[in-house]
């Protein structure tokens, strides 16, 4: 037998369903639905109007066709746009949360109870359309840091929401951002005041549970002058035969000398071996380095979803600002990913780094699409891009589409790309030293991704390495 054919297929282990009573609004989308979502959240009228504007813009837009992915048409009237576990209101203390939910998160490795929590990480747990719990809030409040669900922020900090919502991703930015702006349900809000360095990792854990619903969360992170924050995002969903839409928007703002680090471990249900089911992950993520000397860094490990469409980007507006994008994207079986970044150099002496590692296995199709743009006034801009593909098996594909647009002669832009495979010789060499095929592949793949993993916070790096092993199981042959 081929030495690399020995791996067994492991199941997606986050595929369980929580049995909980939910309130789900009927399928379909129109202005009344938008108003209904807004009223459920008791939103101020300006926000209702903002949603409606987005909805009207969305109605005039068409779904993008340029991504290198294929899927049957989505019926936007066949989706429920709001689903929440039935619970009087957001729990004031952990004791009030439905024990089923606590159990769910515990099963996912995210304990919400005080005594079991991960030290040094604050968690906002989002279940379907709503945030069910936010840990370590009180501690953070003492430092002046606001970390709460988006809905709560709308009530308690409307001035901040009004100032920053849509300031990085306008409602009409693209088809899915417009849809999100109209129907977004919840998400996380985080604001770090001037000069404060957030002492712990902030994180949001997204869980889709209900069937036939979409998840449209909205995350907004603002670091005021000199502030620093590191933020983590994780996500899983049950195994279902139908595709589910996840269209999130994430906006980051870094003021002068501030820094925001955003890490994602995306593990939505990828569908089965034949490509049945799985999440459509159509996400708009963008950061704005608004002030001088600011820094925004994206790190993503994308192993899940049937289809991924996302380009975490940075607008380098402040002089001397820095943008980074580190990505590992894995496709196996019939998964498709079209992901990458945009680095828009506007300020002087701005710098950006892109490191993208694409792994294609099974019948997966992996596309890197990245834009580096240096506008005319962006003197002294620097970009370095490294874009590597690893192919496992001969039924998969790797595609690289970089767009390099330079309009300033003092710019220095470098792009390098390579493609390689795991060779039989490498595996034999490992086996000769006593390492099994499975471990050899894990080792080689993790070695390939090392430059990205070292950007992840410690706990997540370990998690990501394990995840990669599971994602690639049964991929070799």
């Amino acid at each position, binding site marked *: 037998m*081929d*030495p690399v054919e020995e791996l067994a297929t492991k199941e997606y282990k986050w595929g369980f369903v929580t049995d909980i009573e939910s309130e789900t609004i009927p399928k379909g989308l129109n202005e009344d639905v938008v108003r209904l979502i807004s009223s459920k959240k008791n939103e101020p009228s300006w926000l209702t109007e903002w949603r409606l504007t987005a909805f009207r813009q969305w109605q005039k837009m068409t779904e993008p066709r340029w991504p290198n992915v294929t899927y049957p048409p989505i019926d936007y009237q066949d989706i429920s746009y709001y689903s929440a576990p039935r619970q009087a209101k957001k729990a004031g203390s952990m004791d009030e949360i439905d024990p089923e939910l606590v159990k769910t998160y515990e099963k996912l490795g995210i304990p919400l109870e005080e005594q079991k929590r991960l030290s040094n990480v604050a968690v906002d747990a989002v279940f379907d359309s709503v945030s069910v719990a936010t840990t370590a809030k009180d501690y953070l409040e003492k430092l002046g840091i606001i970390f709460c669900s988006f809905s709560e922020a709308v009530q308690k900090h409307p001035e901040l929401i009004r100032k920053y919502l849509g300031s990085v991703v306008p409602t009409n930015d693209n088809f899915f951002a417009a849809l999100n702006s109209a129907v977004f349900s919840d998400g996380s809000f985080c604001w770090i005041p001037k000069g404060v360095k957030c002492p712990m990792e902030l994180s949001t854990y997204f869980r889709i549970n209900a069937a036939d619903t979409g998840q449209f969360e909205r995350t907004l992170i603002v670091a005021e002058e000199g502030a620093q924050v590191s933020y983590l995002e994780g996500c899983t969903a049950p195994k279902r035969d139908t595709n589910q839409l996840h269209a999130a928007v994430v906006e980051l703002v870094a003021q002068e000398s501030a820094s925001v680090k955003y890490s994602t471990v995306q593990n939505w249900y990828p569908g089965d071996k034949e490509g049945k089911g799985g999440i459509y992950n159509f996400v708009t993520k963008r950061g704005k380095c608004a002030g001088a000397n600011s820094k925004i860094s994206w790190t993503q490990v994308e192993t899940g979803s049937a289809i991924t469409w996302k380009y975490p980007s940075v607008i380098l507006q402040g002089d001397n600002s820095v943008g980074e994008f580190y990505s590992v994207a894995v496709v196996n079986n019939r998964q498709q990913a079209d992901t990458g970044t945009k680095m828009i150099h506007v300020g002087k002496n701005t710098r950006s780094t892109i490191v993208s590692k694409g792994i294609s296995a099974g019948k997966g199709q992996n596309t890197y699409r990245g834009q580096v743009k240096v506008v005319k006034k962006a003197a002294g801009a620097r970009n370095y891009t490294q874009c590597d593909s690893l192919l496992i098996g001969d039924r998969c594909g790797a595609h690289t589409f970089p767009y390099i647009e330079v309009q300033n002669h003092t710019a220095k832009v470098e792009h390098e790309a390579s493609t390689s495979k795991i*060779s*039989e*010789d*490498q595996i*034999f*060499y*490992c*086996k*000769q*030293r*006593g*390492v*099994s*095929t499975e*471990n050899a592949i894990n*080792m*080689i793949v*993790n*070695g*390939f*991704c*090392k*430059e990205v993993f070292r950007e992840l916070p410690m706990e997540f790096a370990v998690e990501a390495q394990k995840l990669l092993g599971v994602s690639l199981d049964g991929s070799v042959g």
Partner: protein
Amino acid sequence: MLEIKDLHATVGKKEILKGLSLSVKAGEVHAIMGPNGSGKSTLAQVLAGHPAYAVTGGTITYMGEDLAEKSPEDRAKEGIFLAFQYPVEIPGVSNAYFLRAGYNEIRKHRGEPELDAMDFNKLLKEKSKVLHIDESLLNRPVNEGFSGGEKKRNEIFQLAVLEPKLAILDETDSGLDIDALRAVSEGVNRLRSKDRAFLVVTHYQRLLNYIVPDFVHVLSEGRIVKSGGKELALELEKRGYDWVKAPAAAGAAR
């Protein structure tokens, strides 16, 4: 320890080994010499279980067990080590990590507890001192960006760490300058012991000036055609391979 009888092996459709027999006991050092294409490296790869080589006849008995059906990693766990002629590069995986993975697999197999990173690093440091290996090598990715000499020294270093029962050196001398050759040989000599056997595959006699063998076998067209003591190597050096290429008797070595 190792008993090869009438071994036939093919790569693709081509038969390379055509009835090779060889017997190796613990503590012995056997040199396998022969011209290019005689099957030296094939023998090394067949013993390690390379999937591209198929055994089509004969037997290999190692420690009293038939090797033929064993996977490469099982052979490694049972103490067979191949120092590769062309060690592959594994980008991003550090030498130390790689070795610990293999080392612990072997220990597990022996029913011994695994070593954690700290204890293992201590072990690596000791071994690297003994073999004069630069410690920085340990944290570099496996063979990536190594010079030819560094790769070969790394192979011997791995040998020292994994402590096999049967070590096969496949053209370990090729591509080495005289200083590197001396360093590699010293490493090997240090690792000679009464429990460990060596199979030294080489084209040239010069390596055998440093690693003095107990037995020398000449391989030609897939068979051992002549066996003798270390003086045989010197004679080959002087007279070339032609005089032993006699087509007749498959010289069975003891």
